[in-house]
């Protein structure tokens, strides 16, 4: 079984989307560190904010952005495989529709989140 995942483009893509987990984990750890700094008081939190502004941090977050966006893309793309078939009016919903609904949900959720943050901040 060694190197099985190199044998076929389908497997390579699978390994790529599986590897987004590293970036999800790394980002969650960044948030955990932020939470820790927040609990240590204002100075610590401000230090964390400063660190986020460093070019390295920006670059790393851009990488996270791409990886997690790819995770979202593939997560919903697999919905026809992973979710029970949806039957509407006695007809099975087409896989393309299921995937499209997932992607739309992700976009809506993102915009709602942005809107909420914007409202809280303003």
């Amino acid at each position, binding site marked *: *079984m060694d190197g*099985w*995942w190199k*044998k*076929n483009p*389908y*497997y390579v893509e*699978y390994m790529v989307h*599986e590897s987004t987990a590293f970036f999800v984990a790394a980002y969650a750890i960044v948030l955990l560190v932020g939470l820790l700094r927040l609990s240590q008081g204002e100075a610590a939190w401000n230090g964390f904010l400063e660190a986020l502004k460093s070019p390295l941090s920006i670059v790393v977050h851009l990488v996270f952005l791409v990886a997690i966006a790819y995770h979202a893309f593939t997560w919903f793309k*697999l919905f*026809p*495989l*992973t*979710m*029970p*078939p949806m*039957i509407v009016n*006695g007809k*099975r919903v087409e896989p393309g529709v299921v995937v499209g609904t997932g992607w739309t949900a992700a976009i809506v959720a993102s915009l709602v989140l942005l809107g909420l943050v914007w409202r809280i901040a303003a």
Partner: protein
Amino acid sequence: MSEQKIIEIEVLRYLPESDQAPHSEIYKVPFTDDMSVLQGAQYIKDNFDGSLTFRWSCRMAICGSCGMMINGVPKLSCETFIRDYYPNRITIEALANFPIEKDLVVDLSSFIEKLEAIQPYIIPKEPRTVEQGEYIQSPAQFAEYIQYTSCINCTLCYAACPQVGLNQNFLGPAVIALAHRYNMDSRDGGQDQRMELLASMDGVYNCSAVGYCSEVCPKHVDPGNAVNVNKINAAKDYFLRFLSPKGGSK
């Protein structure tokens, strides 16, 4: 007749009584545009080497015998055409993830054992006599399971599944799809009995949703979906079994 062309077919040969390990042999096979890869293999057997060994029968993609790796992809050789590869070489090998018995013949006994274990028959919800006539099944009830009845047991999905390669005991796509086929049938009441295996260590959670099984399935059974839906069912059974007194699994 159309013009005859020659294609190179590279076959992974393995004769257990004389070979230490599988090796490749290349045959130059004349073909016409209507010839399948299976017919290519038959040509080799008839004309070059009668010892070349492979399973085949119906030639129309319904008996499920003639699956092999064709240029690394699990396919039914009877419905894969030489013309689609020409002028490149075709490589044929025994199905991946099974032990090879000889040349293109693999040992399917583990698959059969799993298929038998899953109780692939109606365990009647309400038994019925012949005098009572047939069960009534609405179009909606019929639509629930019919797709999963199309499996021809060709085992291409096992050759496509890396998790089968990693754990030979994993029930695998086709067998889980077969269990699902009966679970979803309105005549059947055996879901609880089949849950024991689906929720077991060798059951549905071996799957990591690669999805290639459904991709290679020649009959559009979508076994990957059956496996994943049963992760949800098995999880329900796991968390809710204490609520329901008849929970199937131990």
